């Protein structure tokens, strides 16, 4: 099978799944005990409009709630395709706009956490496979299981404690503003996306690590003179963004390291038993070269698949880390939507996370197909 054909086939296979997710979210929304028409008008539901209907009744007609359920689903899908994802009651804005703002935040976090977690997990996995059954192996296996068992929200708060109160060189300007009420200001940012002393211009892509090089520089507030006067460079913005991203990403990375370590260890152990490794050793190549060149590269191939699942895991984990680190990403949005039973938002968030997950899996599978041509033959 050619690569193009493979891609097309995979894309076609995606359609029923996305359709299934849409049915599923719609079904969930039907069961949720919230009245979207009443939620939209709030206290003004009884107010009579110019058309002779109350605000509530006109909302019912506008949202199509008086129609049979199949027709409602049809309206929902056509609206989805036209880009009308409904109105969020919690955020008082269209769902799609909110999601457009929230998605890059979570994606940025997930990718960065993978970029941190992968090297950690893989290098530890290699070491523990090389020193199989030695002390290092035992310890690292224990650590891997311990990392998997860590409650992510607790870990995040422990990091907040360690980094926010114990470590770091204090910037007097940051310290002047305690970020958590009832505390002394920390040294390392443990809260929020940015320093609250300046506003990050939202004219860019939404990925602030990239945006910090694109958008124009803002000025920063100086509490000593009570003026916006400290000028910022692109580098300052990048460093600030990265510093704020570091803790949540590191938390997620630690959580994903355990699984990666295990998989890498198992995969490498399998490869080390292969004939070609034995051949390489017989040829007299140094052990270091055998492992790094012959074994690891082959052992990495199956690990690629886990990357796709890791993205899903990172988005799921983001629900908790975003709540703790106050990032207005998809996870926080989902929590808010569900706590306030925001009908349209729940459907939107579920659908978007599903699409992100499926697309990232698709990309991973494609890269897998490129790396390992055998996959395409299936």
């Amino acid at each position, binding site marked *: 099978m050619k690569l193009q054909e493979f891609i097309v086939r995979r894309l076609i296979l995606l359609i*029923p*799944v*996305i359709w*299934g*997710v849409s049915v*599923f*979210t719609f079904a*969930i929304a039907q*069961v*949720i*005990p919230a009245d979207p028409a009443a939620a939209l008008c709030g206290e003004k539901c009884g107010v009579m409009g110019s058309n002779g209907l109350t605000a509530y009744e006109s909302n019912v007609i506008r949202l199509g709630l008086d129609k049979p359920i199949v027709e409602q689903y049809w309206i929902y899908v056509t609206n989805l395709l036209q880009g009308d994802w409904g109105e969020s009651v919690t955020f008082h804005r269209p769902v799609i706009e909110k999601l457009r703002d929230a998605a890059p935040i979570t994606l940025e976090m997930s990718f960065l956490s993978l970029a941190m977690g992968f090297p950690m997990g893989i290098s530890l996995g290699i070491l523990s496979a090389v020193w199989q059954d030695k002390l290092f192996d*035992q310890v690292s*296996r*224990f650590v891997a*299981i*311990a990392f*998997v*068992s*860590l*409650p*992510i*929200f*607790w870990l995040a*708060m*422990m990091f*907040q*404690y360690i980094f*926010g*109160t114990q470590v770091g060189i204090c910037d007097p300007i940051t310290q002047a503003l305690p970020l*958590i009420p*009832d*505390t*002394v200001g*920390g040294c390392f940012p*443990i809260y929020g996306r940015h320093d609250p002393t300046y506003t990050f211009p939202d004219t860019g892509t939404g990925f602030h690590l990239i945006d910090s090089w694109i958008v124009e520089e803002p000025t920063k507030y100086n509490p000593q003179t009570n003026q916006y006067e400290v000028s910022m460079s692109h580098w300052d913005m990048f460093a600030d963004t990265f510093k704020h991203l570091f803790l949540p990403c590191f938390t997620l990375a630690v959580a994903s390291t355990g699984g990666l370590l295990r998989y890498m260890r198992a995969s490498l152990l399998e490869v080390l038993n292969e004939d070609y490794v034995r051949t390489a050793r017989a040829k007299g190549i140094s052990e270091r070269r055998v492992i790094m060149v012959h074994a690891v590269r082959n052992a990495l191939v199956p690990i690629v698949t886990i990357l796709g699942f890791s993205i*899903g*895991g990172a*988005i*799921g*984990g983001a*629900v*908790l880390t975003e*709540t*703790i680190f106050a990032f207005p990403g998809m*996870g926080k949005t*989902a*929590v808010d939507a*569900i*706590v306030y*039973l925001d009908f349209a938002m*729940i459907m939107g*968030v*579920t659908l978007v*996370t*599903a699409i992100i*997950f*499926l697309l990232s899996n698709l990309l991973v599978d494609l890269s897998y197909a490129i790396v390992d041509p055998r996959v395409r033959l299936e």
Partner: protein
Amino acid sequence: MNSFLINFILYFLVLTLSIFCLGLLYDRKNGRTWNDGSEDRKEGLNRLIQSWSQRLQDIRKSWKIFRRSILALVGLFLIIAVSTISIFADDIAVEHPYRNLQDTEDLWWIDNEPKRLEPFSEGCDWHEQSIDLFKIKNKGYPRYVTAVSDPVLTKNGSLSPNNLEIITLVSIEDDLGYELNNSILIVHNETTFFVTDDALNVSGSKIWVMYEFNNEGMHHSWLPDGYDVCIMGTTNSGQDLFSKILYGSRISLKIGITVAFLTVALGTVIGSISGYYGGVIDELIMRLTDVFFAVPGLILAMAFVAALQNTTSMSLPMSAISFLLLLFICMSFRNIIDEMYSGEKPSTYLDIRNEENLSLFGKFIKKLGISFGLKSKTHFLSKIINSNYLYYQRVIRFLSNYSTSITIIIFFTILGTYWGGIWPQNNSNNIDEVGLDTQLTRALVLVSMSVLFILVTIFDKVYTNGIKKEVIFQRMSASVNFTNPFRFLAFRTIMIFISVILLIFVSKTSESDFSVIRDFDRLWKIQAALILTGWPGYARLIRGQVLYIREMTFVEAAKSVGAPDGRIMFRHILPSAWAPLLVAFTLDIGGTILSASGLSFIGLGAEPGTAEWGILVADGRKFFPNTGWWLVTFPGLAILVTTLGFNLLGDGLRDIVDPKNKR
């Protein structure tokens, strides 16, 4: 113990004994004595012993492998420790949750003492008590006030305070929280205060007195001297964190084990159906799991929690539950008759290509096909059928074998919807008040229904499958050989008994719904959400196993003998696929505890005020980095330790299960 359970066991024993006695009478009448069955008995006992000794040997072998891994042993130790703690929490804990009106065991009363004490701090044995001045002044209550603790749960389940021994008076505050002079109360003796006139002149109706008390009464031998209470500090509302964490282990273990168990059950059934039947069913189920996998687990669980928001109890209509039980009894009888059929023909299941062997319904279908012109080979339908001949054969076989049962099911589902009329309606909520006549009618209805079911089953076998009546009765009496009681230990017989007893219970209740879960509280909501989220993983796991095992020769052998699909699935394939299931189950308990506490942490889980670890962390978060590090650290550590235990154990089990380690 719960009265329902006691009743249940009693019924079970009575039923078993009476049936056994009846059977003995029957045997005697037929000239078969107790001694005639001695060989049979010996055989039965031997088989039982053999199977158990085999099991013991397997366990011993597994333990040998398990023992090699230190980590797995540590995991086992952790789990045993946590479970012990959860069982003996009542005895170990210093403070106890007050059972309130909702009877939620682990819900804590919010105390009015807003002090957070550090672990091992001195103030732990301070107690605040209110003295009602109004009652002393106006109602003539005595001026001597006894020092008592807040009400605690006593052994017999009531709430009553303990007497405390006063050491020193720390402070006195009035109702508005202003400090008062300590001299207005006099410590009369070790257990009482004397309220002076100065105290009576204080404005407001109450004063709050804080004093240090002797902790001897609450002393626990395992605690270090001098620190009898709050080795982990107190929570924001002044409760002992350690006790809360102890009680939290109950909830976490309960959630973890329930969810993992039910998820495994659901996933196994769906996965084995998908793997065994393949084709369209497989495709559909797998696409469904794709949908579930596409949404990250925690978000999915949150969505389910939201969707379950309005569910307050889970109940099935009485007609449905009685119907299911009756159906089960009927099916079991059908199987018993089937088993006996092997004497005359080599296979229970007939070759349906031979028209004589078709049941009435099967013949009807075939005739229907012919009348539609399927006989001519050029017809497009017959082409389709010929090209899918095997599939067609399977459908016909299914229909011909189950035709009557299917008819019964359809008939009684229709009937079941009108069953409300048969049940005498009783509006009183009290179950005990159901009159004898209504109970009797219900019992009669149930008995007649069961008899009807069994008769119809026999009818089906006699008139559609062509088994002789004598054969059926002979085999039936042989299968219930009362001179060999070991036979009754068979799973199916026990299940029939259980369903009969449940039927009796169902006939007793006056409600029109049978509540499966009476109080579908927030805890159940997260459990349900986690089950609904978790099954696809198991379904895939089991499907893979089934696909692999299905091709093995022993399955083929079972098929060629003519074993039914259900039997092959549950008796032949699943027992060979349990190994990875067990590992996944153990690992899943840990994962479930994590997700449940995560859900509680964001406020979607257990009731606020419950001693649940996630909620404790969430409560402590407001004070976290600087003014109460212990509020977050210890509950989190508890989660970590428990999860770690299960994960380590699961890892050890994986080693056992790994064929490389089999010796």
